């Protein structure tokens, strides 16, 4: 299903790398004028697909549903993405990219002093981003979609958060309990649950607030244990 003119540089083959995937033609091609429009088409496909994945669910969305918005031709869609799964993989890799960025931003020296603050900053920033950005929200939900090969994206997320928590336990900031060792999983699953549930709940509280509630309560519990004794 590769595009006949460009098998080596299909967008998917580069999607796994942290840099933005290159669209369409190889560098130095004389037809570089196509670039801008191709980028727009590709972004439109991703946006429409993400909206459907987010509201209807991955399983309820078909390639036909995605083209029915009429913003692009079916042929154009299949040029960029050979399958629904390819779009999902792209959204997941965008999510992984954002996650890595968010974590490294919070890890900059001087941005937050304690591990608790750092974790809170990460989850609050993620909450804000997934609330504003449908593509990202869809990507986050897809990390736990059982029917696609998501490259263990959820485990990757948990591992990244777990690194911070394990360091905090070693430094003595968090208490060394089995529950604290599993805190990363609990935080990530809670965030995902909030994203799924917020669609079914009262609209007066937005998703960002819900994720903040979950994250801050858990982090506070992990840091202020001694006062409960």
């Amino acid at each position, binding site marked *: 299903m590769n595009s006949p003119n460009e098998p080596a540089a299909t967008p998917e083959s580069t999607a796994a790398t942290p840099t933005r995937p290159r669209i369409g033609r190889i560098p130095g091609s004389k037809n570089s004028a196509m670039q801008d429009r191709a980028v727009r088409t590709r972004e439109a496909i991703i946006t429409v697909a993400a909206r459907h994945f987010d509201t209807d669910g991955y399983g309820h969305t078909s390639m036909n549903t995605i083209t029915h918005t009429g913003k692009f031709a079916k042929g154009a869609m299949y040029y960029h993405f050979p399958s629904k799964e390819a779009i999902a993989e792209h959204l997941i890799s965008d999510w992984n990219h954002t996650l890595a960025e968010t974590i490294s931003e919070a890890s900059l020296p001087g941005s937050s002093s304690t591990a608790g603050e750092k974790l809170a900053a990460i989850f609050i920033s993620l909450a804000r981003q997934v609330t504003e950005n449908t593509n990202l929200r869809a990507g986050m939900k897809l990390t736990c979609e059982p*029917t696609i090969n998501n490259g263990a994206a959820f485990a990757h997320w948990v591992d990244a958060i777990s690194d911070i928590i394990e360091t905090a336990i070693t430094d003595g900031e968090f208490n060394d309990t089995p529950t604290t060792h599993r805190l990363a999983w609990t935080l990530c699953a809670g965030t995902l*649950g909030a994203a799924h549930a917020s669609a079914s709940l009262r609209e007066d509280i937005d998703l960002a607030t819900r994720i903040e509630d979950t994250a801050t309560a858990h982090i506070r519990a992990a840091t202020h244990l001694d006062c409960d004794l």
Partner: protein
Amino acid sequence: MNNHTDRSEGIDHGKTGRPPMQPRAKITREAILEASAILFSRTGYAGTTIDDIVTLAPVTKGAMYFHFSKKESIAREMLGRWSDAVTATVGKAIATGQPADRQVLMIYRELARRTQNEAIIRAGLILSVDQSLSGARATYEAWTAAIEPIVVDASRSGALDCAKSMSRLADTLCAGFVGAVQVAASLDENHTMGRRVDDLLLMWRGTAPAAVRMVEGASL
């Protein structure tokens, strides 16, 4: 296990309109639901067809359509089972007459235990956050609404220290619960659900030894 004797008015009779035969029909009905629950967790609700269910369940297509005229009827039945589990658990917890914060722990632990052990109830819970399904939203809202008064009670009695987000705590716990179940189900780690929910409750109650004993002691 469940008591399903009193749901005759809720049964989808298909096109025949006859009430189902009792003991054997019930076994068939449960077999269909069990097979559907397995398939829904493996390929998702949307990705499962009636044909897949008939292939997996030891029932004929005719029997299948006798009990459930369409896939939505199966989903509706699962949502009903989950709601029943919530109602029964909340009722049992209130009947114990324990302090409200202990009741909250009991409810979540009991629901976690049943979600871990009963595939149909687990499927019902996961379907309750499926937005494409009519009735899912109402099921989820009924769940949070049933727990909210108890959580508010617990906060009023001073057992909880999160006054700021007190009104949202029931929602937060439910969202954490559904997230834990979804992730565990998608990673094929159903056996960890009970422990995951304990973690969730510990994070909220604190992991001091006294709180750990309290969480672990709260069972129905």
